[in-house]
């Protein structure tokens, strides 16, 4: 595939020069050791039980799934950035053109350390759901300098199947450069249909199983908080499944443990 070709080219350049594309001043790409397996970036307290080391392990791929669009997976994915961002880590959100920045700020993400990447499109033309080759190349570049890259791939499972190998190459880049790649797959369908999403090979897979909004009733109240059941599984130390009920978000806009 063409997108894989670009990733391979990126690999070739990196291996030969140590620099992305061979065009970037080298002093900026002096990275730490990628074999420091237990170095983690922090997550908020409510999400710490889902990670074996209490935080997101550097150099890994994390996946956030949901069967339908709109049940809180996006909130969950953004909240993974909050603690690390507030402590100085840089974050990039790719493919989420319509990200609500106020909610992002409420979740605790420092907007001064977050960039959003999306293919430039003219307003009347809707963005294509299928990532272009340039988009994949941009993600690979970001993984070399940004601590956490959140990639929105809300595609149907049959389409997602095409990109599994590309995502796995991105995971290799993240491993090499000690960064974290979070893949958001929202609206993948039922569990049986989500086989492709689960076969990406993520270290930790978090899934919003169900959710319910609390608050509004017949014109009274407001959207107060959402209670969501979140499950996680993964590989290695994260293989032991975890299940928590979270406010996603709570009334203050932050993610917290429910009950």
């Amino acid at each position, binding site marked *: 595939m063409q997108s894989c070709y670009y990733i391979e080219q990126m690999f070739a350049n990196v291996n030969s020069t140590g620099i*992305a*594309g061979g065009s970037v*001043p080298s*002093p*900026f*790409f002096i*990275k730490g050791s990628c074999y420091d397996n237990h170095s983690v970036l922090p997550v908020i307290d409510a999400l710490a039980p889902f990670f074996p080391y209490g935080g997101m392990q550097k150099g890994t791929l994390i996946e956030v799934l949901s069967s*339908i*669009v*709109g*049940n*809180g997976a*996006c*909130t969950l994915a953004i909240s993974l950035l909050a603690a690390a961002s*507030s*402590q*100085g*880590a*840089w974050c990039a959100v790719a493919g989420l*053109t*319509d*990200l*609500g*920045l*106020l*909610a992002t*700020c409420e979740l605790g993400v420092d*907007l*001064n*350390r*977050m*960039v*959003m*990447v*999306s*293919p*430039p499109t003219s*307003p009347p033309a809707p963005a294509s759901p299928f990532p272009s080759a340039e988009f994949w*190349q*941009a993600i690979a*570049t970001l993984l*070399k*300098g*940004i*601590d956490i890259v959140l990639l929105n791939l809300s595609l149907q499972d049959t389409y997602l199947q095409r990109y599994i190998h590309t995502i796995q190459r991105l995971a290799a880049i993240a491993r090499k450069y000690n960064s974290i790649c979070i893949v958001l797959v929202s609206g993948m369908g039922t569990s049986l249909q989500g086989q492709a999403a689960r076969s990406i090979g993520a270290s930790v897979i978090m899934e919003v199983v169900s959710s*319910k*909004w609390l*608050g*509004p*009733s*017949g*014109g*009274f*109240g*407001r*959207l107060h908080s*959402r209670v969501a059941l979140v499950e996680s599984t993964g590989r290695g130390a994260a293989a032991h499944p975890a299940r928590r009920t979270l406010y996603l978000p*709570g009334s*203050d*806009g932050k993610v917290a443990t429910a009950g």
Partner: protein
Amino acid sequence: MEIGMERTLVIITPALLYAGDLDYRSLAPMQVCNALAAVGPSFREVNIGIYSSTIWREPRYFGGEESFAAAAKQAVEDATRDNGVGTTAGVADGMVAALLAACMAVGNGTIVVPQGETPDFLAPLPVHILTGCALHPDILGIDTFGDLARLPEKDVLNRFGRNILYCRQIATGKQGKLTPTIYDSIMKWLAVCLQDGKEPFSAKEHDPGIASRPDGVASKRHGIPNRWSEPPSQQDGQACIAIYDVYRSMGYGSVSMGKLHGGRYPAERAEQIAWTPKEMSSHVPGWHEPGQISLGKTENAVDAGKKNLQLDTSHVAPPAGYVNGQGRSGIGFIGKPEVWLDCAANAGPPSSMDMPEVWSGYLPGPSPVVLYRNPTPVAVRDRKGERVRVYSNGEVSGEPYLLVIGRNAQVWISSWAGPWVFEGRWWERNAYGSHRCHSTGACSTHSTGNHAAKSAGHRSQGKYGMQGIQSTRTQNAYSALRQARIQVVTVSGIGYLLLEEGGYWYMEATYD
């Protein structure tokens, strides 16, 4: 009026600017933006602790620029629970002069520079504030802005280059835009002046060590290292270079950053701003954008700081005649629009979670995570299948029951809340006409002749081909002054924020 020389209000909150508590720094800016939104619609966050607003017509509403500045200052103090360091406000022509005025108003003051008097205001100030180490007054005899302004423009260009020419344009009141380098220089100077509580221009003596490290102020006050004022780290450099690489490969508009500012609903309170290489100058030491005006000929502000270059803080009193007094406590007519939402009065028992709350003037949180740039037209119907309308008194014509998205997608609404009515404020520039065009998959075609109206700034409406509802063109621009929003939850548990404008509904956001 010259571009960049608009009347500008700047609010500085040193308590926030130099706060060491990271949690406080991450949350307080939003509270400040909320507070400022109640005062004016154009407030922007320049940096954490520094807020600016281009003054449009607001002072007429508040009774003058001084009152407007005082109201904004009071709102910030209330939001930050100012601990005594002192929030200041400055009003002047252009951003640079307003920022300097706010810096000089340290001590809970407000300085208002009358329109057209900015050169006189700047004249006695040391030119080091903007130029850093670029000019050497001992050698050249150029001490103040006034000295610089008196030099012939042609000679300045030939002798000192474009950078100092830009400073001269500021000194003469022809330019007022704030560049990253000038901002860094002013902030460094402010940090020096604030150390030990000394006011700007009155610090006769200063510690060169602290002068070279703005974070010394924060460390000294709080005992906590302040990473925000530290020189850019290698991590910042790596990130910015990666972003720059993406910017080069994908083009302008592909990379953006978020910015909070004033407003009453999510779409108004934050926006995406296209990332440009200018951002590099604040995060990457030594970076100079090709063609960018940089004030230091050989070194920028960060490099200057590393070499312990001292900034001159010789005493210069604020010019006489400018307002420099205590902020007023009066908020003005719209300062605190507190209205109780009395649920009991609306014939329906509120649940325990729906206790009456103070109507803050904003859409209540939590905010939607997905906010559509181009809201999708939808149709909202009641149980009888009729369109739901929001009347001017905030009542709905019927209970929302069915949400029609696009041509065929219909979802049932299980619960809803609202409406929140937002009356347009008369000083808002965009209030007199919306460019939104109601055309969807449910809209077979645009009404004929609408594009002329659209280009004229009026709303253009389509018709619901599927629904068989013929919409009428709304030529009355004043109808755009009122919007209403409701929150709905569908039977599948998804929350949406719907916007009603001129009788038409749009899906504005999803609570994903």
